[in-house]
């Protein structure tokens, strides 16, 4: 197991390097710079001397390959560089955003699993029925809503009209604050999970070993519990893993709408002011999260499915 984790961790390195390179290249040709963003408000002219000093200080006057090399050699020492914007180490900028982001991703996934999986199960019990068809339309509808639209709708209904929940903001330790953004973010994965669960249950219910279990005389609840559920779990684990892994990056719109201090909104803000080191750092964190979650999913696979060996 340790060897597996080590090997997978090493495998992440080329992926991360490729991500770094891609982001680096994209943002080396992007129009506008951190320097011009200082004047974007059309309000405070910034002294030309200051601008040239800034350029020097951030090494922006150096040629591209040198900048890439400097970045990579810093990274080798776990140094993500200095944020142009806040002038702090990039990690100090990213770190406070990490937990809110993870919390939102997990809660959204929790909602998705809590609603999506039972929905898929129920639909699969009577395949082809009106209930099945209806459940699937509802589930697919969840995939068909523009996020910010749905988020705004939730705000209006649950915060303003009903007054049940706060409409925005982040409160460490508060469950009430996370409900609306988590639902808005989780509705897509919810639909995917419902779909996968339904398909998985149908597939498993048709499997030969379930017929065997029936032939053994197992009552339906026991059958589902000890022979169907685990096998379905294997099937939906992939979907769940991919979704949790991707949620951190998908949360951009929701985070902006609900003023949620996650990595996604940091990323958008940093792109807007061309704070490239933070953009790099944030993308790396998002990618790393994806890769780590996928590794965890693979480990979970190995724990559930004896056919898969981690080494």
């Amino acid at each position, binding site marked *: 197991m340790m060897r597996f984790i080590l090997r997978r961790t090493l495998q992440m390195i080329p992926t991360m390097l490729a991500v770094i390179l891609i982001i680096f290249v994209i943002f080396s040709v992007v129009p506008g710079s951190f320097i011009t963003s200082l004047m974007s408000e059309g309000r405070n002219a910034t002294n030309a001397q200051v601008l040239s000093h800034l350029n020097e200080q951030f090494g922006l006057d150096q040629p591209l390959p040198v900048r890439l090399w400097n970045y990579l050699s810093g990274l080798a020492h776990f140094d993500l560089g200095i944020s142009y914007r806040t002038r702090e180490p990039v990690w100090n900028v990213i770190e406070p955003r990490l937990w809110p982001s993870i919390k939102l991703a997990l809660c959204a996934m929790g909602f998705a699993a809590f609603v999506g999986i039972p929905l898929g199960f129920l639909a699969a019990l009577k395949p082809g029925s009106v209930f099945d068809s209806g459940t699937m339309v509802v589930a697919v*509808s969840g995939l068909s809503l*523009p996020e910010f639209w749905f988020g705004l709708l939730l705000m209006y209904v649950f915060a303003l009209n009903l007054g049940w929940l706060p409409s925005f903001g982040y409160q460490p330790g508060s469950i009430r604050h996370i409900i609306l953004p988590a639902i808005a973010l989780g509705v897509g994965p919810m639909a995917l999970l419902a779909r996968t669960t339904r398909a998985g249950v*149908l597939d498993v219910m048709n499997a030969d070993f379930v017929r065997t279990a029936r032939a053994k005389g197992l009552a339906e609840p026991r059958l589902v519990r000890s022979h169907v559920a685990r096998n379905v779990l294997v099937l939906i684990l992939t979907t769940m893993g991919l979704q949790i892994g991707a949620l951190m990056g998908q949360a951009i719109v929701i985070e902006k709408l609900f003023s949620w201090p996650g990595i996604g909104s940091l990323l958008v803000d940093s792109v807007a002011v061309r704070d490239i080191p933070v953009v790099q750092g944030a993308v790396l964190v998002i990618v790393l999260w994806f890769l780590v979650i996928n590794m965890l999913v693979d480990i979970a696979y190995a724990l559930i499915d004896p056919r898969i060996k981690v080494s």
Partner: protein
Amino acid sequence: MSLRFNFALGLALVVLVVLGAVLAGLIAPYDPIMDADLMNSEMPPSWEHWMGTDGQGRDVLSRVLYGARVSLTVGLISQLINSVIGTALGVSAGYFGGWWDDLVNGLTNVMLAIPSLVFALAIMAVLGPGLPSLLLALGLTNWSWTCRIARSSTLSLKNQGFVQAAKTAGFGNFNIMRTQILPNILGPVLVIATLGIGGAVLSEAALSFLGVGIRPPQPSWGNMLSDARELIRTAPWAAIFPGLAIFATVLGFNLLGDGLRDMLDPHMRTRTA
């Protein structure tokens, strides 16, 4: 027989949207850009304006119809690009194997790891808003699933009799890929592309919300919705109708894709759901 209704519903929605887009020039009562009457902005639905007017005094119905063109273009073209890239890379990787396969595999993993919205946002930042950049941003960032499926299908097809036979018969590699392998993977690719169209339409809306979508004043559902988000209380129709259009279109393509998948290969369900 299962879910036949859902497929029919999906097909109907898609046909409706396609008709709207194709016939926009004929049936739209107003010009979506030039017929702007600021004095009559934010008017509720009436006989003159079935879906009311927006903040600029333009006819919402006409803009929704013309917006269908943009949204469908975005959806179809970007998925076409994705499918071509994904299929070409996937098939060649599966067929040739070796270092090329490793490279494509690595690239696919990278593309999967970077969330497509983040990637699209970066590309839009470079190219600036507008239809061509949007097509590229969404077309270059979503091919990894197609590539994976194409690759694994090619791997399993490669060693089957008919491909081996074609090889012994002296067919060129390209010919074999084109005539023996490609037809066999078009089904799954089509399903992924269909489901992807809905995703692209939603991405357009999300990018518009983030301020990097279609270049105004060209109507797209995304920027209509984004522009109208503050009018929700005062002129809800300006936001509801483009929202419904997005919803119906994405729902339509998703149901259509689900149905296609069930028809083509029921076992794909668990692989691509």
